[in-house]
């Protein structure tokens, strides 16, 4: 060989050896006739040991010859059929018995007659890349699992046109929409028409300016129900930092609102109670003087009859005020109930006969009792609970002057509470009155002190229970009371 050719050959080999890819040249039968340093280092054999060996002998550590032949044939057929580089993956076990995943690029080399002269193989070690891909896939899956496990929040993303492009977490259970129904639909489907027109543009404007905005508002489920949420809206940015959409995270606060409302009502009641107790005390003093003086006057036997009669009327009215104050102070005072073990079914049964004493049209009212058979016992004061039930039964009967049905149901509501529902088919309560129903001195009746329900409320609260009301005008009202039952071991 002449020196130039020799030098060229050496240089070529140097270039091949410096390459960071595996280079192999195979004859048409797959036999290795050339290779570079990379493969030598990987398999721990020098080129002389590799020349003359079938390529699949170093590639495939499966000793099954048939499989190897099939693999080679598939590779070859692929390469020849398309007469262009064919890419596929295989693995090599190196001299340290570590497996490497190689991305092979096979180029068929054709002679002048267009026949296959050989195959040039370039192999890229993508082991690390594959490991990273697997790791990222795992992180992805973990992230998706985390997101889909969070049911209390709903995440959805819209593009600049307002169409929903992605959702996760509790979206489906919160809104009732399935992916196929909602994807690429407009986000307006989740908002009231008013909010869509007025609030949403302002929200997005805030987010564009400040990056983030949070507010309370109402959203709409697929079935049309409106529910309260805390909505957090963020910019969705691309790699260059341009806004390409908006990310919404919604938390359904229906239950929290209910609880907040109950606490607020409770605190309002307590404040009113305290104020009124103070007032009641202030009234008691002058009333005491009025009554006392009247009694002393009435004690004068020489009083003319007409004057005596007038003073008696004044005394009666003073008495009336005194009873009212007394009842009110009972309501306002937080007395700890006695701690007896009580069967609610028995208390209700004992109380029902007293309805007839209250001059109610109870003969026109059909009373239905649906009592749970094994109702757990509750801790409480039987007298106070009797007062609660008698008040509620009286209210129910008074709502049905023409007669109707009074349905009393007791249930072990599962978990911790005994649940009692008292339903009537009376005139129902105007929705605007529902908020004030348990407030002291609130009454929808022309007679009555307006204290009955507020006393019930206080007694129930003192027993660590809850009371709610559902009503429809013209259809009837249901009061639902829950008391915690005595757990085993208590």
């Amino acid at each position, binding site marked *: 060989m002449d020196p130039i050719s020799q030098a060229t050959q050496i240089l070529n080999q140097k270039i091949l050896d410096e390459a960071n890819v595996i280079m192999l040249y195979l004859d048409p039968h797959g036999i290795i006739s050339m290779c570079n340093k990379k493969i030598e280092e990987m398999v721990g054999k020098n080129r002389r040991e590799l020349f003359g060996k079938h390529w699949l002998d170093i590639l495939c550590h499966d000793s099954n010859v048939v499989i190897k032949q099939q693999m080679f044939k598939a590779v070859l057929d692929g390469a020849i059929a398309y007469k262009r580089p064919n890419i596929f993956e295989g693995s090599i076990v190196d001299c340290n018995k570590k497996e490497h995943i190689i991305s092979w690029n096979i180029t068929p080399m054709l002679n002048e007659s267009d026949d296959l002269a050989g195959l040039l193989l370039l192999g890229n070690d993508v082991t690390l890349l594959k490991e990273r891909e697997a790791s990222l896939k795992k992180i992805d899956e973990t992230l998706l699992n985390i997101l889909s496990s969070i049911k209390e929040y709903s995440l959805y993303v819209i593009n600049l046109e307002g169409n929903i492009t992605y959702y996760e977490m509790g979206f489906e259970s919160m809104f009732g929409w399935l992916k196929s129904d909602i994807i690429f639909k407009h986000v307006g489907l989740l908002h009231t028409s008013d909010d869509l027109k007025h609030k949403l543009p302002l929200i997005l404007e805030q987010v564009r300016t400040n990056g983030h905005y949070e507010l309370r508002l109402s959203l709409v489920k697929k079935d049309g129900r409106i529910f309260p949420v805390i909505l957090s809206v963020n910019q969705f940015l691309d790699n260059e930092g341009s806004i390409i959409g908006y990310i919404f995270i919604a938390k359904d606060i229906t239950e929290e609102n209910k609880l907040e409302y109950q606490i607020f009502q409770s605190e309002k009641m307590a404040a009113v109670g305290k104020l009124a107790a103070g007032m009641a005390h202030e009234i*008691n*003093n002058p009333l005491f003087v009025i009554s006392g003086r009247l009694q002393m006057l009435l004690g004068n036997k020489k009083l003319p009859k007409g004057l005596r009669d007038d003073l008696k009327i004044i005394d009666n009215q003073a008495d009336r005020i005194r009873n009212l104050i007394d009842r009110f102070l009972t309501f306002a005072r937080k007395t700890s109930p006695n701690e007896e073990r009580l069967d609610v079914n028995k208390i209700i049964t004992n109380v029902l006969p007293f309805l007839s004493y209250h001059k109610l049209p109870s003969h026109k009212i059909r009373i239905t009792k649906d009592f749970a058979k094994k109702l757990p016992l509750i801790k409480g004061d039987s007298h106070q609970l009797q007062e609660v039930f008698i008040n509620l039964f009286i209210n129910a009967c008074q709502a049905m002057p023409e007669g109707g049905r009074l349905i009393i149901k007791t249930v072990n509501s599962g978990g911790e509470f005994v649940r009692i529902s008292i339903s009537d088919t009376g005139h129902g309560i105007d929705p605007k009155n529902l908020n004030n129903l348990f407030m002291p001195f609130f009454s929808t009746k022309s007679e009555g002190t307006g204290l009955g329900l507020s006393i019930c409320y206080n007694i129930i609260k003192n027993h660590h229970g809850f009371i709610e009301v559902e009503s429809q005008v013209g259809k009837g009202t249901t009061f639902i009371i829950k008391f915690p039952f005595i757990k085993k071991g208590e």
Partner: protein
Amino acid sequence: MPGRILVVDDELPVRDMINDLLKREGFQVKSVATGEEALEAVDNEDFDAVLLDVKLTGISGLETLKKIKTKKPDMVVIMITGFGYDDELVTKSNELGCSGYIGKNSSISQIISCFKALIKDAKEKIK
């Protein structure tokens, strides 16, 4: 039975009313407006019983009760109140040694008979 009663209430019409009521029943009455005046009266004069309002200006009724009982453990002190029957007040008053508890929301005849019964009971206990 009648004797000498000290009436303690911060309202003049109430004091006057109780005054007249008790005098009609044959009692001798001195009335004062504050706990401080009550303590001074108890120090300097003899009384068969004290009728003491729970709510006073200055030192409270309960504080006055405590101080009277400290000075004169055998003194009959009956609490009277516009708060009506209050578990907590009654318990505290009992702990401090009061002999009874009357609500201003009771009728006058009830107040008088309760008052007389309480004084009688208390005196018998002391004997």
